[in-house]
């Protein structure tokens, strides 16, 4: 049994809001493992805490107003990233663990050429000379499929389209051949046909470079196509963990079921969609007991008082009392 590359245990990141509404418990006890070479998908809607989770791993949370609670553990190759000294953490960022973001327009610095930005990581971490770093940048641009890399290396971000900028971001992230790539909604801002290109690129790169990918998205379709295992988040917690096929075949948590049923499909005829009633609660006031109970069709008294732990065996667990008491599941009316 291989050791996980990245172990997250009981991660809690809270934010102090100055609106007088108290503390936002954005991430409230999240645990998962990432194994070498696999793609782990983190799925959830807005407000579930998935982006804050990914930023917490690399300690990119602004310290006020946010803070990561002591007792949280983010272990990479045996070392706790949350207690690492700053220089050692910097040696890992961009080098062993890299990150790409959703908006390529704002994630690239508009006053530097893309070549400079890609080379920067190589210069910092691998101490390459400027010439060598530039050659490396051209190589990376070729790797991510950008046409005319030798010419493009001197272009500025505004001269590129959205899809190309995302490729540049990927090149920047991969220039030091990291072991883990955190991709935070990498295709959400792109058109569908460009999204297909980028997803195919990520597949190919993962096969070639053998890195593990933490893919954060709200799109169940993307997760179904890319991830080996999936973690579903709701209200700052993990509510279900499973392999991708298991999750779609046999979802245990009612939220996962609801989410899968609510996604419009190409192959279904014109029909009513199954919506999840209500809306995501605010992070400053999570409901008591099971946080999903106000919107759950199966909820009963226990759900409103006692918060369920992750239940289930093997690789498939869910934070739901139904796992222990399947008889309580209501039939469709």
């Amino acid at each position, binding site marked *: 049994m291989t050791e996980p590359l990245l172990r997250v245990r009981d991660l809690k990141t809270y934010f102090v809001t100055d609106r007088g509404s108290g503390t936002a418990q954005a991430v409230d006890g999240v645990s998962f493992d990432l194994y070498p070479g696999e793609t782990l998908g983190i799925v959830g809607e*807005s407000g579930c805490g998935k982006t804050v989770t990914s930023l917490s791993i690399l300690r990119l949370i602004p310290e006020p107003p946010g803070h990561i609670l002591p007792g949280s553990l983010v272990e990479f190759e045996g070392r706790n990233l949350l207690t690492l000294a700053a220089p050692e953490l910097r040696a890992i960022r961009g080098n062993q663990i890299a990150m790409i973001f959703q908006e390529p327009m704002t994630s690239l610095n508009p006053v530097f050429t893309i070549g400079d930005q890609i080379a920067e990581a190589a210069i910092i971490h691998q101490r390459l000379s400027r010439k060598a770093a530039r050659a490396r940048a051209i190589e990376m641009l070729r790797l991510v499929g950008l046409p005319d890399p030798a010419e493009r290396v001197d272009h500025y971000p505004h001269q590129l389209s959205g899809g190309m900028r995302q490729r540049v971001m990927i090149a920047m992230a991969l220039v030091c051949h990291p072991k883990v790539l955190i991709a935070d909604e990498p295709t959400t801002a792109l058109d569908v046909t460009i999204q297909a290109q980028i997803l195919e690129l990520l597949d190919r790169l993962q096969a070639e470079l053998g890195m593990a990918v933490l893919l954060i998205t709200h799109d169940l379709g993307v997760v179904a196509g890319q991830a080996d295992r999936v973690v579903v988040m709701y209200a700052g917690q993990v509510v279900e963990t499973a392999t991708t096929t298991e999750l779609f075949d046999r979802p245990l948590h009612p939220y996962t079921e609801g989410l899968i049923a609510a996604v419009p*499909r190409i192959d279904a005829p014109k029909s009513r969609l199954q919506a999840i009633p209500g809306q995501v609660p605010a992070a400053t006031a999570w409901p008591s007991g099971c946080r999903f109970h106000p919107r759950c069709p199966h909820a009963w008294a226990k759900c409103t008082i006692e918060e369920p732990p992750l239940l289930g065996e093997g690789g498939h667990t869910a934070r739901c009392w139904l796992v222990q008491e399947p008889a309580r599941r209501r039939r469709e009316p």
Partner: protein
Amino acid sequence: MTAPLVDIRDLVKHYPGERGLLGLGRPRAPVRAVDGVSLTIAPGKTLGLVGESGSGKSTVGQTVLRLQEPTAGRVLFEGADVFALGTGEMRALRRRMQIVFQDPYSSLNPRMTVGRTLREPLEIHRLAPPAQMDTRVTALLDEVGLDPAFAGRYPHELSGGQRQRVGIARALSVEPRFIVCDEPVSALDVSVQAQVLNLLADLQQKRRLTYLFIAHDLAVVRHIADEVAVMYLGRIVERAPAAAIYSAPRHPYTRALLSAVPEPNPRAARDRIVLSGDIPSPAHPPSGCPFHPRCPHPRKNDRCRTEVPALRAVSGSPGHFAACHFAEEPM
């Protein structure tokens, strides 16, 4: 055959290109956002207009409502030429056609309460005496599934889905016959998306509305459209009844678009048609067929590069049109 409610004929919208030299140089190439679009929408039906960025679909929606002036073409609404109307007639026409916007965060005036936003159309068209305004507002909120207490709230106190419902209520307040839905669910979470789509479908049934539903997501359009038109670089490349588009598309772009939509099914065969290259800019469309540089059709030839294919009827499929030289031999 009933007369169409909306009849768009050869609609063209070009934006002048930017001028260099502080506004005094020669104008650069115009942005051809909409380059000759013809569509009809039958009363009570939904036409889905699908495309990616640069396709011009949002521009079509706004121009049909005359929120932007067209460069050429005509739009007939209930037989009347929309672009030939004077200010007073246009204001009266605005009651019959409305729009719901994509971004719930910018489609409501942040300085007006929900109640005032909903009262405004009623005031402009004098649809209710002042004493009855509040009742009408409550009725509208109720119709879109919101509590009457929302009337006193400001947009920043509402969630995205709730704001979108207010936008729909505003469109409904003047009792229109036709609503342009400009990507109404693209900015919403999946679970909320389903709620709003169901609401739109219910309202269509109840009030006998006609929709022009603009979207980039083919899966969403599936659930609400009777007919679908696919746009690319300002032109319609395929148009057909919904069932035909999804089961037997004839244009290579439609096929690529369909295969690119990620499906929430891990076992689905992943033979995605991945297009190479980027979407060209509408200021510099390619010669001939606008799609030819990225087209994966095996029969692609010189004719594609030089001759713009016309939107022709496709044999064996009634009401089905495609703009491809090889529409009869799909990939």
